[in-house]
């Protein structure tokens, strides 16, 4: 049952069938064959029906020091001394091995049979879980192939940004994955209390065609970008964090010193756009005053943001590597103090702060508090409550098996402060981690054998930030930044509506961004913006607008 090859055993007829299927896939005729191709897609929009969502019930086993709020994670300023045993019964009922597939961005840990951490967790689960960790950066290809060939494992983890790229994904969901509505909707989720504690905002995104199909992995920070500063170096230079774009420009002037190999900025354009108030929903849409939608490229705010950033580039306040290439290693430049401000995802923060403070005493990486372009104006911060991953259960495993798998997911969703969480996150005490004054410290074996993609990615979890000794102020800083900035988070016009965007629109986005890049680094004049925008509109932008307007109208928004 769990062996994906079992039903594909080879005989001559089967093989000929395969060849036939292959041919059909080439012709784009197979039901899912189109999964890897976007060609010809006109787009699909479907909406979440509240009735299918699980009823939210918080799990209050361990009280956080700073309570979470919506998409803001809970904060813990110390590691709990008494861990709670949240799940007493073994989730597994001795079923066959559960095969999983998840993306991972890091060294691959040893597989089942050579990994004592997997053995420990599986013993606790009462069923064998065999995780397969795939390269996160080529996950799209892997996902396309497995979906197209209908060769899915028992549990499949799919990142939201890959799903957005796969055409006819909703067809694939219906054909390949179990409809979880009857297991989880409303009070039915009570059987899985940890899953019931995931936020409703995250569950809303797990609905395809009006039915609940996946367990979400809620985001621990809704913002797409932050502007990071080297606060230690800025303080030393006597430059305060800017509070509007003029101050940003002045700071750039003061801090840039090419003679010493120091430039004020790395990439900042996305943050500048947000300061000017450009919209970011679905790559930049907002409602127009007179009705209908307008794209950020068509707005005055965008023109001003572009003009401002071109000036930073022109006056050489941006590091030359960043101007010259798309793939400049800005993290290294920032760590080395070669650039003092750059934009990055907030996920980069803790790791860089922790690692770098070991070699650079006083290293202090901080996000610049969100600011509007001019005194008195407010920024528009891009982002959403969209979950990072979705976990799908293979279709047709039977009710008992599906329940067993959901119990495993429930175990994987146990929150911070529980014994289950510690085992999942760190492994066995004395073997995979030792207990320091600030909580568990992984051993070499732990670092080698444990990866979040093995279990944590599967079940979602209530997001939490906890103190670690190498980043003592991180938890407060992170949550304070979020609390201060959440008021500027742009509301998601399309929240809960599943959009499979028209192919032409999806295809025009990157080339347009490339043209804008040419304007930024001076290869094209600023006056080309009008032409770029009209090319964007005729190349698919207008089609995208019509599609999105219709999706909003259909949903009465």
């Amino acid at each position: 049952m769990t062996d994906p090859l079992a039903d594909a055993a080879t005989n001559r007829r089967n093989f000929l069938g395969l060849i036939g299927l292959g041919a059909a896939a080439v012709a784009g005729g197979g039901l899912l064959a189109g999964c890897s191709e976007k060609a010809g897609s006109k787009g699909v929009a479907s909406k979440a029906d509240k009735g299918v969502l699980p009823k939210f019930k918080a799990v209050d086993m361990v009280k956080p020091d700073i309570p979470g709020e919506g998409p803001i994670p809970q904060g813990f300023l110390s590691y709990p001394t008494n861990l709670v045993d949240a799940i007493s019964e073994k989730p597994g009922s001795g079923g066959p091995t559960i095969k999983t597939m998840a993306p991972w961005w890091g060294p691959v840990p040893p597989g089942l049979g050579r990994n004592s951490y997997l053995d420990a967790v599986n013993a606790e689960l009462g069923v064998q879980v065999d995780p397969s960790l795939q390269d996160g950066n080529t996950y799209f290809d892997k996902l396309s192939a497995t979906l197209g060939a209908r060769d899915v494992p028992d549990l499949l983890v799919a990142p939201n940004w890959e799903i957005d790229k796969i055409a006819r994904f909703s067809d694939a969901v219906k054909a390949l994955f179990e409809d979880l509505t009857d297991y989880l909707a409303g009070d039915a989720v009570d059987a899985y209390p940890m899953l019931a504690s995931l936020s409703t905002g995250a569950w809303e995104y797990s609905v395809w065609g009006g039915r609940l199909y996946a367990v979400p992995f809620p985001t621990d920070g809704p913002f797409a970008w932050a502007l990071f500063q080297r606060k230690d170096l800025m303080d030393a230079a006597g430059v305060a964090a800017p509070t509007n774009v003029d101050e940003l420009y002045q700071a750039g002037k003061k801090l840039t010193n090419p003679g010493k190999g120091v430039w004020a900025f790395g990439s900042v354009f996305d943050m500048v756009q947000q300061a000017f108030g450009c919209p970011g929903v679905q790559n930049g849409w907002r409602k127009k005053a007179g009705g209908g939608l307008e794209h950020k490229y068509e707005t005055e705010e965008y023109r001003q943001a572009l003009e401002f950033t071109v000036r930073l580039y022109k006056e050489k306040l941006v590091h030359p590597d960043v101007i010259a290439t798309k793939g400049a290693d800005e993290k290294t430049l920032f760590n080395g103090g070669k650039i003092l401000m750059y934009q990055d995802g907030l996920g980069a923060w803790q790791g860089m702060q922790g690692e770098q403070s070991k070699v650079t005493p006083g290293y202090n990486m901080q996000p610049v508090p969100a600011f509007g372009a001019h005194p008195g104006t407010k920024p528009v911060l891009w982002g959403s409550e969209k979950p990072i991953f979705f976990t799908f259960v293979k279709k047709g495993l039977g009710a008992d098996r599906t329940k067993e798998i959901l119990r495993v997911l429930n175990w994987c969703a146990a929150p911070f402060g529980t014994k289950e969480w510690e085992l999942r996150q760190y492994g066995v005490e004395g073997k995979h981690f030792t207990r320091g004054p600030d909580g568990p410290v992984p051993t070499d074996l732990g670092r080698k054998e444990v990866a979040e993609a093995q279990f944590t990615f599967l079940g979602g979890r209530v997001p939490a930030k906890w103190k670690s000794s190498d980043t003592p102020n991180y938890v407060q800083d992170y949550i304070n930044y979020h609390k201060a900035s959440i008021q500027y988070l742009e509301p998601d016009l399309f929240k809960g509506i599943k959009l499979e965007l028209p192919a032409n629109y999806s295809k025009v986005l990157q080339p347009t961004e490339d043209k804008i890049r040419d304007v930024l680094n001076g290869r094209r004049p600023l006056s080309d913006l009008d032409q770029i925008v009209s090319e964007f509109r005729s190349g698919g932008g207008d089609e995208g607008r019509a599609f999105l307007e219709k999706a909003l109208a259909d949903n009465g928004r």
Partner: protein
Amino acid sequence: MSAVVATRARRRATRPVWEEKPTVIGRSAKALILTLLVLAVLFPMWSVLVTSLASRSTINEAGGMVVVPREFDPSAYFTIFSGGQVTQAVWTSTLLTVMGTAVSLGLTVLAAYGLSRPGSLGHRPLLFLFLLTFLIYPGLVPSYLVVTGLGLKNSLWSLILPTAISAFNLVVIRAFFMNVPSELVDSARIDGAGEFRILLRIVLPLSKAVVAVVGLFYAVGYWNVYFNAVLYIDDNDKLPIQRVLQSYILAGQTPHVTGNAPNLPGISAYPPTLAIKMAVVVVTVIPAVLVYPFVQRHFTKGVITGAVKG
């Protein structure tokens, strides 16, 4: 006497320019240009090597790649090899390379020999079929279906069989085989040799150069196998070296997503240093650097054969 001088002068005048003894300036200019070219090739490799052995603070100070070595810090190599995963992958890849090259070379030589004999059955249509694979690639999903359907998934064979014969290499070897004098083949046949004996005793010994070169092509190809491993190998213990090393390079990097970089939990906990990335590059390149000198003497001859004789 004067006649002799005149003849010499005339000879000098008619001598083509490349037969002239090169001037000192010309020679030093050549030396200079060649040295610059060699440096242009060696410099990045040097920088990679030095960076892989640099400490984090040296890398910070350089703001990226290091050029001037300050210390010898092999910790990046320890990090890579300490997990056991890399050592395992090196074995997997070695096995894959040896097996794969043997299979590919065997099949290619046999096919090339058959196709190089003008009288062999259906050799034109067969050759056409081989050449067709130059133009037409089966596509991701169909290939995946065939490989999984044959039960090859999670087996090293899935990395060997789908790419066992490269049409390019086949054409190169066939061209070389066709160039073996037919008199030799005929005389062997008169002496009673069968096709296999002719191939093994006559044709192959005369074609060492091209076989060595094509073997190197295949071996490098198998050593560098990456994408098929992403598709077909789910078992973490069977991943080839490139797939494993790549995971070190990308560790901690947030995936590149237009406009909305996700906040991934955990993955940035231990971001790799540039040193680790460069150590990975060194580890990947070493086998090719080690093998190349042994095959090099065959290289020009082997490759040019395919180029000038069709």
